[in-house]
């Protein structure tokens, strides 16, 4: 029986090869997308879930409680010690302080050490971290990490530095200052972890480092890269720890106010998808949106299948009648049709998997991800594919199968099966409308995301990104020489030493006390150390007062308009020559600059102060004269390397730095463009198939109408009016849904584009255009055909 089903299914697919091809292609594409989306969702949901104690591990985070609550990723240095002594139900607690940048010097035979600049690889850790996270040791001893100046490396890093993994006892130097001895080698880290540091050095080393030692017992400072991880004892709940926090806070208070820092245990497994405390730029809502898009694509492909199958059912009606007269039951017929569907779906799955395999590397590049088909994700992937196949077989095959199996033999033998009429056709309308709705929602979504990115790109940031680039200032020692020498290069217009450019992800937030007000202000100021050339180099506009005078220490402040507003002063002039205490230094405010975007567009503009605190300089900003920069850049590099031979040269143009603020939006844009394109393409395949059936069915009608005097446009209208009506109905459904979803998305941005009618018109018109191109050709062909021919063939 199964052989017979297979045989007839195969012959049928071959006979209707166009139809089969459209179906296999459409389903294959959507299955490929679903698979990729599944891999991506699965990957992101799997982050840090593989640790044996993941369920009972927390990271201590801090809410900074000012006029608004600011969530913060880190916790103070003494946190782990306090947790250990305070709560017996905490099994282990450990500090983990990642350094964003580290220069590692590895001695070699030549005597001149090899230098490596490592980003996000270096971290100070307490040895307890190995009893919390799964960081398996390949060789060596974790206990040795209690000693200062000891380090563990991953195999990858060991091979990179020393050419092999037998490296115990070898040494390296960190930031040209501190020496470390390797005491163990770790297995390479999996991709799905946010704890990606591969050079783990002993926490106790910090006791002898002047920049860290004074703060190790300090509850007053927190850094985003310094975490406290804690594993609770089995059976104890995170809520229990959270409930104990108010008491804990009173005991280990911040000197100023116990309310300022509110500590909170946050589950390790939830960290990756949390934008407040986590480090990823993937949000749960994006994963949901992706899953929804995957479902959309699947529905679109299944709709194609159902449409084409029911349109085709007429052709198969006679066969159904014959089979029933040969003694087939309804069930046997249903399964015969399901078998055909299954055959198409299996072919589509094969094509889908191949497509997914080929496109995965591109997806990884676009999304800046690291997703693989191999590895532990394989079993869930196979199960997903199996479930997906069964789902698609039933979603796509069940309805046409049921309809065809139910044909009355007597009626269908006469070739008058009732599919086409009332019920079948209105269902097909519903399905086509569904497809149009999905396409329009995706088109509108894509248009809104694009518009928002365009808005951010074209918007006035309040400073001129122009031809400005930055180079690092690794040591204070030579910075003034560096500045002078760069300024002397012809082609350089301005040079400024500063902490960071106006918009930056590195910030220095601190409290502020204005004039003689008794209390500190309930908000923080973003203090940006910068010299007197800063506002000219970056093109900041002075709205009141004057610029800073050159100095190496804090003598006076410049602030922005928001600073003035937050102090409730009526005009910028009022603040001039008043004193403010920022970061412990009292000095007059001499000027006010116009507001500029310091965070990108998703957040409010901060209160900002500039001051000539040269101890905080870490960047040198260079503005170029118009002209060919290549030669100038070369000279800047030479000058820099002369001053800092021990460091790594790096040059970043402001345009690139600012593009980083739009990174997650750009990723979303690319994704939604791709998926909207695919959804439209799949929809087109179906529409094309459907249109061919309609043309065939109406050939005779067209012939008769033409002999009765119908014109070509009149005939085209016969086809067109149906589609126009369906597209309009789809628009009525799609527009509010898309408006609601995209409006909610735009609310993430304090500064955003407006949802004008233009975007919706784009959605509607492009659907018309797509439908016209897909259906138009065949309709025109049918309309201009010679009626004598079509009538004769009947």
């Amino acid at each position: 029986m199964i052989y017979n089903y297979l045989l007839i299914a195969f012959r049928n697919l071959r006979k209707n090869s166009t139809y089969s091809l459209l179906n296999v292609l459409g389903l294959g594409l959507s299955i490929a997308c679903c698979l990729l989306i599944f891999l991506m969702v699965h990957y992101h949901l799997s982050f840090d879930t593989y640790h044996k104690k993941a369920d009972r591990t927390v990271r201590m985070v801090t809410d900074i409680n000012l006029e608004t609550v600011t969530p913060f990723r880190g916790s103070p240095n003494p946190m782990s010690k306090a947790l250990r002594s305070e709560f017996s139900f905490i099994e282990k607690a450990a500090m983990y302080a990642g350094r964003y940048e580290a220069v590692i010097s590895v001695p070699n035979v030549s005597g001149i050490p090899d230098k490596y600049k490592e980003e996000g690889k270096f971290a100070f850790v307490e040895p307890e971290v190995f009893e919390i996270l799964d960081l398996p040791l390949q060789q060596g001893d974790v206990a040795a990490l209690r000693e200062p100046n000891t380090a563990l490396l991953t195999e990858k890093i060991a091979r990179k530095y020393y050419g092999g993994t037998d490296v115990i006892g070898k040494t390296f130097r960190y930031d040209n200052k501190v020496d470390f001895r390797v005491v163990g080698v770790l297995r390479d880290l999996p991709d799905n972890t946010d704890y990606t540091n591969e050079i783990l050095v002993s926490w106790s080393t910090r006791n002898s480092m002047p920049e860290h030692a004074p703060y190790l017992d300090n509850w007053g400072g927190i850094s985003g890269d310094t975490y406290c991880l804690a594993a609770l004892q089995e059976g104890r709940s995170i809520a229990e720890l959270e409930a104990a926090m108010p008491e804990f806070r009173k005991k280990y208070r911040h000197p100023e106010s116990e309310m300022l820092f509110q500590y909170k245990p946050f589950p390790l497994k939830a960290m990756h998808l949390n934008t407040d405390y986590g480090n990823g730029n993937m949000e749960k809502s994006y994963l949901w949106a992706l899953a929804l898009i995957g479902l959309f694509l699947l529905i679109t492909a299944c709709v194609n299948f159902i449409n084409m199958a029911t349109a085709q059912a007429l052709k198969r009606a006679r066969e159904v009648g014959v089979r029933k007269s040969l003694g087939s039951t309804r069930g046997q017929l249903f399964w015969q049709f399901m078998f055909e569907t299954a055959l198409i779906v299996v072919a589509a799955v094969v094509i889908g998997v191949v497509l997914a395999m080929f496109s995965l590397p591109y997806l990884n590049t676009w999304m800046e991800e690291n997703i693989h088909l191999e590895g532990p994700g394989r079993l869930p992937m196979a199960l997903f594919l199996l479930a997906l196949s069964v789902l698609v077989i039933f979603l796509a095959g069940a309805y046409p199968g049921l309809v065809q199996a139910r044909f009355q033999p007597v009626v269908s033998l006469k070739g008058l099966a009732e599919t086409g009429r009332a019920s079948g056709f209105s269902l097909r309308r519903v399905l086509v409308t569904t497809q149009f709705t999905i396409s329009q929602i995706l088109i509108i979504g894509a248009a809104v995301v694009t518009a928002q990115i365009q808005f951010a790109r074209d918007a006035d940031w309040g400073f001129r990104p122009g031809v400005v680039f930055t180079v690092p200032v690794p040591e204070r020692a030579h910075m003034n020489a560096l500045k002078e020498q760069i300024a002397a290069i012809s082609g350089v217009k301005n040079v400024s030493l500063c902490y960071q450019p106006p918009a930056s992800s590195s910030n220095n937030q601190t409290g502020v006390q204005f004039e003689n007000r008794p209390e500190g202000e309930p908000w923080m100021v973003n203090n940006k150390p910068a010299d007197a050339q800063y506002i000219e180099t970056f093109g900041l506009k002075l709205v009141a007062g004057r610029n800073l005078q050159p100095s190496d220490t804090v003598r006076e402040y410049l602030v922005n308009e928001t600073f003035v507003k937050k102090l409730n002063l009526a005009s910028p002039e009022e603040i001039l020559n008043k004193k403010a205490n920022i970061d412990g230094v009292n000095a007059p405010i001499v000027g006010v600059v116009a507001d500029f975007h310091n965070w990108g567009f998703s957040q409010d503009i901060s209160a900002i102060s500039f001051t000539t605190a040269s101890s905080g300089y870490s960047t040198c900003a260079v503005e170029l004269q118009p002209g060919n920069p290549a030669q100038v850049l070369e000279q800047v590099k030479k000058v820099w390397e002369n001053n800092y031979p021990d460091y790594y040269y790096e040059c970043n143009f402001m345009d690139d730095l600012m593009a980083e603020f739009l990174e997650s939006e750009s990723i979303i844009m690319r994704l939604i463009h791709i998926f909207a394109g695919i959804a439209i393409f799949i929809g087109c395949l179906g529409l094309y198939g459907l249109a061919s059936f309609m043309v065939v069915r109406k050939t005779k009608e067209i012939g008769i109408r033409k002999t009765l005097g119908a014109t070509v446009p009149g005939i085209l209208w016969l086809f067109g009016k149906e589609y126009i009506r369906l597209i309009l109905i789809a628009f009525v459904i799609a527009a509010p849904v898309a408006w609601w979803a995209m409006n909610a998305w735009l609310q993430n941005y304090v500064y955003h584009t407006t949802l004008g009618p233009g975007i919706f018109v784009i959605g509607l018109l492009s659907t018309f255009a797509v439908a016209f191109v897909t259906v138009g050709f065949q309709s025109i062909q049918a309309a201009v055909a010679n009626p004598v021919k079509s009538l004769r063939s009947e």
Partner: protein
Amino acid sequence: MLELKNIEKYYQNGATKSYVLRYVNAHIAEGEFVSIMGPSGSGKSTLLHILGMLDEPTEGEYWFLGEAVHKFNERRRTELYQQYIGFVFQAYHLIDDLTVYENLETPLLYKKVPSGERKSRIADLLDRFNIVAKKDLFPAQLSGGQQQLVGIARALIGNPKLILADEPTGNLQSQQAREIMDVFKKLNEEDGVTIVQVTHSDANAQYGKRILNLMDGRVESEDIVRK
């Protein structure tokens, strides 16, 4: 063998009923060869479809080998049908995508006959109808008469007790038609298969033993064929 009691078939069209069959009573004994005749639209085919359980009467009783068919659900009807009835159509209705061999095999697959027995039965019939050489051809490659031979062979493959034929020679030339009718006659006389045929042609009706004349859905008269 089968008995029809007050069979009615009508379609409700708003308030009016349009009747296809009215008060049809008939009795057909095992081994008979009955022809149903009548003008177009008199309900011949509908009656045949009801006999063949492909269609249901709106009212009335249908007894087949002592069983109340009108009370059966679709599954029981299919079982009964598979066991006892073979159908021959005017338009042959072979499945285009299957070869002659596979067309013959299909009813046996639905009856879940084991493979060995399927092979021997098909070989038997191919032999009997002299179409062994055609077994791997598709229907479109055969003449009308050959197609109808395959149609009859397919109807016979399940060893039915009753063959229902709906104008089996309607699409054939007279020479081929005569050959087909001879096959039916032989089946009836030598193998004892009960045959009910619908026909327009007096000549074909003469092959049978009894004629039911239908007019506007009623059985108007019955004739006995005299040789």
